[in-house]
């Protein structure tokens, strides 16, 4: 059977499974809608958290990014897993004991102020929208790459699917669908990894294969380092970023992970404080399976790619190369007219993406109009490392199709979790808690469902017409979360003296500083200014790492301001004392 047929079959089966679960897990109350009724088992919650967390970016792009970045890619591996240690030790158990629905709920009550609540809602919306736009785009890309469906139609199908299970089931539907999606995505990620690990090193476990010897009797990583040096790249295992920048980016990603509202809210769905701790452990264990495999895939596919293309005749290149050239993820320009592919360090193009002319060159390659004069002749999109991996390794068609189903599961599960946070922020934090406190439960549920429809439509529009800044901003969502939520929540638990003046000042200063730096050095302002060059970065800190900087400023401002303003009222200090003790958590409630 062809890849196409297999893909339709696997996508069809998994989608019907998600629908079935959505119908089975309909939500009848706000409690079911917001926190799945609070009765989810720690293991199920761990699986749902893992699926929620691992997005299209983790599944499709991460291994590819590491593959091209080598050691520098470690920031994502450590940053996106280490954050769970912070989450488990510093946030999850206490927020569960606090027992409300949302992060703005905690901020609003702990800092006895609707201003603080509103600041938190705004931060939650900024973080979630930047993140969700990337997911819808991811759905569109999977559809267009694997099923030859137009990207726009792909996004619309994705929107419809998320809409059905989020609209019907709320958190309850999303949680149980995510459990299924975790199984699909991890299976789809691991199967090709096992195959390739055996092929290259004879060891079926990718984590060990990565450190094993290849046929010639040398260690795989040493071989890759040698290949890199020969072609003028930096050694794979050393990297190019400064130590300080690696440090700052890793820290920002960790604190940002712990501060992401769609991850935190998951810990409100388990019955007890004890379960919240345990479920963070399960979540990280399940995430670690993918995160320790990704660097292995990165090494395998990097070696494979170099060996397959470097100095080879274009005419003798395997079929997959030409397939991906046709979809625009590979481009080759025969600069020295020798008919061979020279792949060495440096950009092959004068701009980021290849611009294809409609003509074919002497060897039958697609001609591009933006090749530059450097010796490198090859452009490879990073996403290809996961998408094309099974083809490069000559795996059976059903494995290739599996990758499509896995990518869709990863993108849809994350999108659903984020959309729920957006709708909760509006129906619960904004309408119920501020604008219309006496709204009935039924009314709130209707509002939540309307909000989710609107959010999906906005996210879909972002997915179809991605504004240039979205891609840049997704990576920075973590910096934003680290600079705003993380300090406010941690200080709210561990510093009894922290008051509303301190927390609000800290959050406002933190997020503004981060936004300022992001606009100045990363995105620019359309029509007003272009981003400033890296040579002007403060202390050599990249925009991705600046969240660490902004986070510390937030903490310092919070502490200083809180010490010169009045202590929080007695009843708030009592809340802090009570969340520090695990017993008597009861169920998450709305009042």
């Amino acid at each position, binding site marked *: 059977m062809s890849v196409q047929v297999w893909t339709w079959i696997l996508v069809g089966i998994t989608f019907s499974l998600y629908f079935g679960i959505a119908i089975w897990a309909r939500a009848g109350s706000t409690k079911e809608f917001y926190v799945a009724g609070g009765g989810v088992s720690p293991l199920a919650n761990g699986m749902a958290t893992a699926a929620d967390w691992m997005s299209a970016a983790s599944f499709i792009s991460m291994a590819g990014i590491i593959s091209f970045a080598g050691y520098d890619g470690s920031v994502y591996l450590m940053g996106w897993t280490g954050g769970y240690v912070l989450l488990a030790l510093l946030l999850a158990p206490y927020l569960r004991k606090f027992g409300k629905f949302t992060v703005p709920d905690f901020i609003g009550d702990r800092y006895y102020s609707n201003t603080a609540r509103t600041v938190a809602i705004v931060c939650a919306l900024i973080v979630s929208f930047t993140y969700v736009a990337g997911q819808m785009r991811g759905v569109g890309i999977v559809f267009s790459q694997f099923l030859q469906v137009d990207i726009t139609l792909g996004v619309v199908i994705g929107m419809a699917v998320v809409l059905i299970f989020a609209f019907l089931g709320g958190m309850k539907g999303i949680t149980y669908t995510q459990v299924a999606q975790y199984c699909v995505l991890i299976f789809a990620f691991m199967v090709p990894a096992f195959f390739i690990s055996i092929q290259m090193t004879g060891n079926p476990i990718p984590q060990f294969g990565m450190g094993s010897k290849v046929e010639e009797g040398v260690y795989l990583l040493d071989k890759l380092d040698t290949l890199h040096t020969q072609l003028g790249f930096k050694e794979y295992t050393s990297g190019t970023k400064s130590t300080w920048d690696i440090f700052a980016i*890793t820290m920002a990603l960790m604190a940002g992970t712990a501060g992401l509202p769609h991850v935190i809210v998951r810990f409100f769905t388990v019955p007890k404080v004890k379960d919240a701790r345990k479920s963070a452990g399960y979540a990280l264990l399940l995430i670690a399976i993918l995160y*320790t495999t990704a660097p292995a895939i990165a090494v395998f596919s990097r070696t494979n790619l170099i060996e397959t293309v470097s100095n080879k005749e274009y005419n003798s290149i395997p079929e997959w190369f030409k397939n991906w050239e046709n979809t625009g993820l590979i481009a080759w320009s025969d600069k020295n007219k020798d008919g061979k592919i020279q792949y060495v360090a440096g950009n092959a193009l004068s701009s980021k993406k290849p611009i294809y002319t409609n003509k074919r060159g002497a060897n039958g390659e697609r001609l591009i109009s933006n090749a530059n004069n450097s010796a490198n002749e090859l452009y490879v999109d990073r996403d290809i490392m996961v998408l094309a991996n099974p083809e490069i390794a000559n795996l059976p068609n059903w494995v290739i199709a599996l990758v499509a189903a896995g990518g869709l599961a990863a993108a849809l599960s994350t999108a659903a979790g984020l959309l729920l946070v957006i709708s909760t922020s509006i129906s619960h934090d904004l309408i119920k808690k501020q604008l219309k406190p006496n709204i009935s439960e039924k009314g709130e549920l209707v509002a939540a469902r309307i909000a989710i429809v609107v959010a999906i439509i906005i996210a879909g529009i972002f997915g179809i017409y991605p504004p240039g800044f979205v891609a840049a901003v997704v990576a920075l969502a973590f910096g934003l979360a680290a600079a705003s939520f993380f300090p406010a929540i941690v200080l709210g638990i561990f510093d009894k003296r922290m008051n509303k003046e301190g927390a609000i000042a800290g959050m406002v200063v933190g997020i503004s500083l981060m936004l300022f730096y992001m606009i100045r050095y990363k995105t620019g302002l359309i029509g007003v200014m272009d981003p400033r060059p890296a040579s002007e970065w403060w202390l050599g800190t990249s925009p991705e790492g600046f969240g660490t900087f902004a986070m510390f400023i937030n903490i310092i401002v919070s502490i200083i301001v809180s010490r010169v303003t009045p202590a929080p009222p007695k009843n708030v200090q009592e809340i802090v004392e009570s969340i520090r003790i*695990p017993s008597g958590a009861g169920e998450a409630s709305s009042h």
Partner: protein
Amino acid sequence: MNNKQKKASAYWKENIRYLTLLLFIWFIVSFGAGILFKEPLNQFRLGGFKLGFWFAQQGSIYVFVILIFVYVRLMNKLDKKYGYDE
């Protein structure tokens, strides 16, 4: 301070002690071994891995998982000791 408050503050102190210890390890394996001391550690090898590189891309993640489960155990015991378990 009444008895109940004394108990609560003793519990909290022990909790903070555990957190400090666990977060110290968290920092050492990632920011320490994987980033700051990566170069000297790369002189040593673990099979085909340079040690610093291994900590950055594999080892730190394994330790993170273990840390959370150790924390779960420690806290469950602590909850029992103070009668906060349920």
